[in-house]
């Protein structure tokens, strides 16, 4: 497939840490393995003869399809993480994500209302953090996950300083 990136040309993207793949893998495992196990329960019951419904083909298809989708997403994770990137320009921060569904967002420094740093248990173990930018719009969903803790702190300070310099009203 034609995979021309949608971002403006000539931007030096900073990539997030590859250790973030581990975080995504753990998240994937927690979400998907449990789901597949629960969905497989009817199959077990049908095989054991405890249940008469659903029919065998349905009991097989549902967990199998779920498993396939889950595996497909698993395969995508490393590429998705490599597709994450951000770039500090003079007046705004660019954040990009996605391979199939690409998104490039520009958040002007003067529009930032506040900056969050969040650290989950797995991220903490790996020394990573997530930086989140908030503007007055609920549509601004700008998350930069998988930053090394030091880089996250630097970015936050940088954003705060630039935001102050260019502060605008609503």
């Amino acid at each position, binding site marked *: *497939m*034609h*995979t*021309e990136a*949608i*971002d*403006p*040309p000539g931007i030096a993207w900073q990539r997030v840490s590859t250790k973030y793949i581990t975080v995504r893998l753990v998240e994937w495992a927690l979400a998907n393995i449990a789901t597949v196990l629960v969905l497989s329960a009817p199959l077990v019951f049908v095989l054991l003869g405890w249940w008469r419904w659903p029919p065998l083909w349905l009991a097989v298809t549902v967990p199998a399809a779920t498993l396939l989708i889950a595996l497909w997403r698993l395969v995508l994770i490393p590429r998705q993480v490599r597709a994450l990137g951000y770039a500090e320009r003079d*007046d*705004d921060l660019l954040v990009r994500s996605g391979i*199939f*569904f*690409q*998104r*490039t*967002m*520009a*958040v*002007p420094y*003067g*529009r930032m209302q506040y900056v969050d740093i969040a650290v989950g248990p797995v991220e903490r173990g790996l020394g990573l953090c997530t930086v989140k930018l908030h*503007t*007055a*719009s*609920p*549509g*601004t969903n*700008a998350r930069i996950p998988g930053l090394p803790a030091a880089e996250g702190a630097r970015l936050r300070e940088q954003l705060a300083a630039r935001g102050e310099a*260019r502060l*605008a*009203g*609503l």
Partner: protein
Amino acid sequence: MTADGQFAGPALPPGAAPGTTGHPDDEWLRVHPASPFVRGWVALAAITFFFGRDLFERTLQGQPVFEDGFARRAPWLLGGGAAVLAVAVLGFVLTWYFTKYQVSGGYVRVNTGLLFRQHRQARLDRVQAIDIVQPLLARVLGLAELKFEVADAGESAVRLAYLRIDDARQLRATILSRASGAAAASGAGPTAGADAAAPPGPGNPSASFGPPAPEAPEIKVLSVPPSRLLGSLLLSEQSVFIVVGGVASVVLSALTDNRAFYFYLVPAALGLIAGYWNFFNKGYNFTAAVSPDGIRLRYGLLDTQAQTLPPGRIQAVKIAQPPLWRPLGWYRMQVNVAGYGASGSAAEGNTRTILLPVGRFADVMAMLSLVLPDPGTDQPEAVFTAGLGGRDSGGGFTTTPRRARLLAPLAWRRNGFAATDTALLIRSGRWWRELVLVPHQRTQSLALHQGPLARRFRVADLVLHTTAGPVAPRLTQAGLDEARQLFDEQSARARLARKRQTTEQWLRQVVPAGEPTPLPVGPEPGPTPGGAGTTEGHTHYQQEGQQHG
């Protein structure tokens, strides 16, 4: 009660003249003493109704008012009831007593609560909108609720319920004149800079602003006749559903010989009538006016509401035309205003974000000239006409490229954008026509989106993020190169526009270009709102306003 910002409001001591006005600045005021009862009248009415009906029926039937067994316990019950009532009334009174408000030094402050005290203060120059609401009973009593909105998207920052209507208007005028910077500017001279945030206190010149601000003069821009409102309701999508549903029920009944289908119609009809009534009640007598304070919207049949939107507070505008309205040339306008939020309570939010419930092309242009006084183009009429009804590249619009017509077989010639010096126009929809305007300096952030299908056709979506509200600007299926270019240009334009906007106090904006000013320009060049100024503060207002006009 205290936490949600609903408190008995401020009022003057009973008997104080509406000239409240003479109050020194730091005096704490209370809402009208009748407020708790106006707000609690539903409960009182319900109690009266139940007991009253019982009594009435018994009397009619010649029965004793109380049965024997009941009569013996009656004193206790009455005593208990009276105690509960007394506690409730005491609660009302205490809440009322401990609720005080004050407007001084660039802030409005409200203290509430007896056990859990809440002190809230909001900066006046952060005002996004001020509403004066009069529910029916309050209207009968000559009271009104004043809502002060800041960009919080949730509850109103300050709700004062209830004030005497004259006091509410007076307070609104005072708040607006200070928020605009007119009061501070006239009273303070050169010392007060652009920051209204100067701490209140004896040193703050604006605190010494003595006489009340006069209400800013206003010019009526348009009104919606009830007949047109009724027509717009009859021609709404809702009506189509009714007709389709009704026909379907009748056909089903005839086919199946089952009368049951008719019964479904009864509750449906009741609900629909309620819906229609709600719209009619809210939209009745809709009037828009312009004053140096901003846009004034008034509407309501039984419950009336008056909104004031100061200049530059409108974040995005949507002009929509459903297919049934097209033969009549009617349009509906909705806005995003930071203080109104997505829809607070659904019904309330919906009506408050309506800028024009139904209007003709001339009305739309008049409202646009208020929202966007500087259209940023030489031929605003041509551009907006193309945006509302045009296709292809007329009026400077860039549409979806022909290669992507399979993605939007009907709308690809409509979907498009045009950028003027002050705003981005996004149009869409072949049948449900829409035009969205976002002033450049109101863009929060923007994003390009592209899915796999769009990539095949080399198109992308551009999303502009604005504050919560009914308008969600999204340019769909623009050519990739155009979208990318727009993404860059739009960032630059938004940056420039932000630089030109220097302060929240709209009368003090130092930059003349691109700033919304209250003076209408363009197709509706009414007389300037000046000429009527009598007081000194007022004349100042006018001069300031005209400098920017």
